[in-house]
């Protein structure tokens, strides 16, 4: 199985390539990609240099243009696609049908991957994208169990890529407006979720309070591991109790299920984290590469190391395991 690794900066890109990534995915420094964070992402020149470096090392480069085109400003996305193609991207990762149609028509030779943001969660949906836009690969939503994935694999006409490590969306990706409800900025339209511009931490007695816009997302007693106030990972009051209503501040780790994923027909394993630093990328990619190259019974100690890198220092196998639901 291929290992698909994140890069938010050229520095992280180099680390991922050097650590043994089979492909690195990244995006331009604008609203065309779903990690449109301040100080992150690639200029055209940086991408050109990165792709050249990757090619020398035999690594592929995927360019994510996975937000939804703003009505009237479609040119920004079309230009992004044109430039990524011209710069030699091995695949474009897309979510918007309008953009998929444009790319399929204009660049029929270009490999097109369906972003997780497109929320293609079943064979009918995936085959629709294959037929309509000749999509060659689909990144599956993190809402599926391994049994679901195996079943989908038997019924679709393209490759499957799944997330195995990193941040976890609790909600169906690409179909969530929680962030814009609280901040006016959404993953689909602006490429941000719970954006830093609306985040505030304040101390209240011994507690650390995290706020997003006008809303309190969490309160951490002294000594408790804190988290970024991602809306769906906050602590809330429901009826008479309070707790993590949607999901604990954990991240995804299904590396323990590698064999099952392989058996399900998964072609590529994806690591989330374009917003993380190059040290994180280097550590995670090299450890996962080592794990992939080890026999199953030798993987555990390698993967244990990764745990300290995750949000809340806890991991979950998410929807891949049915009980999570």
């Amino acid at each position, binding site marked *: 199985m291929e290992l698909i690794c994140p890069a938010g900066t050229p520095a992280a890109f180099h680390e991922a390539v050097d650590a043994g990534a089979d492909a690195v995915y990244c995006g331009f420094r604008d609203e065309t990609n779903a990690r449109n964070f301040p100080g992150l992402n690639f200029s055209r020149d940086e991408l050109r240099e990165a792709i050249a470096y990757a090619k020398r090392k035999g690594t592929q480069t995927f360019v994510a243009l996975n937000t*939804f085109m703003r009505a009237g400003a479609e040119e920004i996305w079309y230009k992004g696609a044109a430039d990524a193609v011209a710069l030699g991207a091995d695949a474009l990762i897309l979510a918007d049908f309008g953009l998929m149609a444009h790319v399929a028509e204009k660049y029929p030779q270009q490999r097109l991957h369906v972003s997780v943001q497109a929320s293609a969660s079943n064979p009918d949906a995936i085959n629709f994208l294959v037929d309509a836009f000749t999509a060659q690969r689909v990144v599956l939503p993190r809402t*599926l169990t391994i049994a679901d994935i195996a079943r989908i694999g038997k019924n679709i006409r393209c490759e499957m890529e799944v997330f195995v490590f990193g941040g976890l969306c609790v909600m169906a990706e690409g179909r969530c407006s929680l962030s814009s409800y609280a901040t006016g900025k959404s993953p689909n339209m602006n490429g941000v979720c719970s954006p830093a511009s609306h985040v505030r931490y304040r101390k209240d007695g011994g507690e650390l309070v995290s706020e997003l816009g006008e809303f309190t997302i969490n309160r951490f007693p002294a000594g408790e591991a804190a988290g970024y106030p991602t809306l769906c990972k906050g602590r*809330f009051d429901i009826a008479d109790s309070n707790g993590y209503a949607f999901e604990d501040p954990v991240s995804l780790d299904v590396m323990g299920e590698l064999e099952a994923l392989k058996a399900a027909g998964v072609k590529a394993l994806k690591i989330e984290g374009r917003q993380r630093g190059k040290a994180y990328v280097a550590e995670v990619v090299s450890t996962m590469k080592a794990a992939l190259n080890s026999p199953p019974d030798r993987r555990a100690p390698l993967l244990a190391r990764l745990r300290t890198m995750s949000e809340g220092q806890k991991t979950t196998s998410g929807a891949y395991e049915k009980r999570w639901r």
Partner: protein
Amino acid sequence: MTQTKKTSLTLGPVYYLWDAEKWRDFHFRIADEAPVDRVVIGETICSKRQHFIEPHLAEVVERLESAGKTVILSTLALVTLNRESKQIREMAEVSEHLMEANDLSALAILKDKPHTIGPLVNVYNAPTARLLANRGAKRICLPPELPFTSVKEIVAEFPDIDFEVFAFGRMPLAISARCAHARSKGKIKDNCQFVCREDPDGLPVRTLDRQSFLALNGVQTVSHACQSLLGELDHLVEAGVRSFRLSPQDCDMVAVAKLHRAVLDETVDADAGVAKLRQLYAAAPLANGFHHAKEGAVWVARTRSLQAAWPA
């Protein structure tokens, strides 16, 4: 507001799990009294709930149609199971009714068959609308998150497609494979005992500082605030929007529909309409932030000053 083209009202599907009789009687009353042109019915959120309304489906369809309403059958918002896809496919094969797509799989199945697009499909721009129209979409309800600037752009490109906006109701914000509603009551999805039935208008989610924030509806998360574009109907009509969706809440939806009809017909002024709506649905504050490209939770007051400043 121009009356050259007729405006219409669509009653969206009931997103919540209501007792079967309540669901039936609600639609009977809509059929008899509400000035809506079409009604979307059918379970949209969770396939486990489908059996509740099935015994009443036929009589509700009949009652609505005898009252002159167009009936549209809803489909699931998140399709992951085999039986869920199968059910949509079978419905598409046998049904003579228009169906509404809420997920990619329905789009695939409904290709070349006249259908409508629900607010849960990502239509953010004109090229996407064109693609869907070419595949047979007759009416497209745009996502609640879409700002007016985008609505205007999209509608301007396709005067022939009937575009609809989400004008009333708690905003559908997210859907998950996981059931937060069941979890909050100590259950998991596979053994949920339909606890979501206890909350016909959603289960309130408050912040730790007791701010009202969201509401749970099974696997769906909706806003605490209720979207209302009553004060923006005139601009929307002017932009070419012809259809307005009212999403059922646990309140007098007949009165809500009448109020929207009255404001569209200019027999009630928008400001008076908003004041009246606050009484009709007092459970949550009104919000229209998405329309104004702001936080979805906020309310932007209607400016009356324009006409005063520049009399016609």
